[in-house]
């Protein structure tokens, strides 16, 4: 039982990180039909912004702020203006190819201009453990959970309780109608890109102490984000959160109790089951058929 709780908590912590990445992913899809195949690399990169700032002598908290800021500008604004905007009128597929190329570009750039070695990354909490019901739980997992929950809550409040958030939701649900009622649709789309930039930076800060900062980190993280988004529902922020948590917990439990060799396969089997039985995702709405 104790080991089960340990696995559950560390799974929840991983799942919370996946959820942050998946939420950003679905936001981009909802507002601009961008399937960002570089989302994993977007999580990999901010860690290196932070490490580079620390190389210049900045303390960790300042470096983290610089990293989040840079990420919002580069992975939000610049990504939207330079890559997404010129491609949108061509449809979904060219943009998919372009983001695949972008992921290669980011990976190789980090490898060539920073380092191909895994870099140690400062953790949020000290490496001590706490005892809960006989289970040993690391303070780091709890810190990760806390930050991730706070971020998701903040996003939830922004989206549902403010006028800005409702305008963004309206843009996601029906851009034409949103434009008619006077919502500045283009600016709302831009905001979702900026939010994605912030989310991936926060996810990067949370995940890098665990996996170390390495240029290949994006591969597994991007995959996790896709899976979480589809399992939960591509067109729902709640769905992405649920998908991320399911994925993180399942990953930990299946590796421990079933087969560690095939731990990568269980989420995929769930994915296939979800797609066959409930293609819109666990919490998703059916999208209308395009003619």
């Amino acid at each position, binding site marked *: 039982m104790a080991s089960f709780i340990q696995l559950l908590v560390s799974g929840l912590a991983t799942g919370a990180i996946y959820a942050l990445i998946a939420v950003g992913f679905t936001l981009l899809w909802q507002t601009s039909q961008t*399937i960002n195949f570089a989302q994993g690399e977007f999580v990999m990169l901010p860690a290196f912004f932070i490490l580079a700032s620390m190389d210049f002598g900045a303390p960790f908290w300042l470096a983290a702020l610089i990293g989040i800021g840079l990420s919002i500008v580069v992975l939000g604004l610049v990504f939207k203006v330079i890559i997404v905007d010129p491609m949108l009128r061509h449809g979904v597929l*060219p943009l*998919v190819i372009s983001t695949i*190329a972008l992921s290669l*570009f980011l990976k*190789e750039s980090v490898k060539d201009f920073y380092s191909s070695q895994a870099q140690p990354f400062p953790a949020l909490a000290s490496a001590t453990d706490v005892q809960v019901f006989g289970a040993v739980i690391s303070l780091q997992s709890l810190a990760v959970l806390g930050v991730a929950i706070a971020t998701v809550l903040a996003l939830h409040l922004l989206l549902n309780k403010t006028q800005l958030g409702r305008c963004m939701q309206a843009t996601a649900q029906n851009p034409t109608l949103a434009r008619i009622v006077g919502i500045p649709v283009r600016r709302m789309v831009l905001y979702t890109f900026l939010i994605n930039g912030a989310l991936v930076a926060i996810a990067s800060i949370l995940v890098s102490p665990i996996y170390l900062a390495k240029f290949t980190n994006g591969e597994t993280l991007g995959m996790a984000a*896709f899976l979480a988004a589809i399992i939960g529902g591509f067109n729902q922020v709640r769905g992405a959160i649920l998908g991320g948590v399911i994925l993180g917990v399942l990953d930990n439990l299946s590796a421990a109790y079933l087969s560690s060799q095939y731990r990568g396969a269980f989420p*995929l089997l769930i994915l296939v089951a979800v*797609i066959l039985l409930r293609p819109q995702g666990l919490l998703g709405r059916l999208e209308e058929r395009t003619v």
Partner: protein
Amino acid sequence: MSRLGVMAVGVAAIVAIATPFFLKPFGIYLITMWVVLTIAAIGLNLTLGYAGQVSLAQGAFVGIGAYSVALLTQAGWPYPAAFAAAGALCFGIGWVLGYPALRVQHHYLAFVTLAFTTLVFLVLRNEEWLTHGIYGISGISRPTMLGWSTAKPRDFYFFSLGTLTVLAAATWWMLRSPWGRAFVALRENPIRALSLGLDTRRYTLMAFAIGSSLGGLSGALYAPLVQFIEPNSFALALSFNLLLMVIVGGSGYFFGPFVGALIAVLLPEWLRVTQGYYLIVYAAAIMVMMALCPSGLLGLAERALKAAQRHSPRAPALHTEATGS
């Protein structure tokens, strides 16, 4: 095909036959790789460019084909039998995998196939009793056909080129048959195709299965070409690369995969002069190309041709039409 097209194909054929006589072994290896990957890209073009289904599983089918041939020939099967078995196996798996293709389309299918590629990779890596896991399979011999040994690079190149010619001709013929027309109808307007009485379910499955089978046949040549296969070669990167080839060449154009595969094989080699940065330049080049010309290089060529002959408009043939999908 227009007269210009026939001439272009003729010139390309002469170049393809003459080139290996001027190249060192590594150069021959590269153009053989081009031939092999072109076969897989033709298959993906069938799925993507004609039937309109985004698949990220083509690399996995190349892997299944390569492992089938490696294992079967080492078990004593003659190469042609192993070759046919690889194609048939991939056809079957493609047919089964295609079932979800009917429930879900577009980006969902991309993810189902992505999941499939990852699963195949895991099986190749973990089932050591069959695939030797991460150690891979080495010492795959090149076939001897009717007394003609293809062990030397140039012989194997011509063997591959011959196979490509036969498969490409078969695909060309199929696309001009009612079947091929049905594939295009699926892409252009699936609902209208359905209302015209086409069994869209069967045709979509068929396109996917035939495309996968070509992927398997490409793998059947890949294994004896590199003579050493391991799971990593068939991970997601290969599927992405094949997708890039089809798009860069021009999806929905018959000769798109030929051009795309040529670029994908040669460009990284040419860019080696930029030392470590060639992948960065390559990725940037793809992004620029997608922004400027999403219909691929052949789309660009067609636009240029149309601009040149604007005074003599011709009715465009359906099978060479660009799509915006």
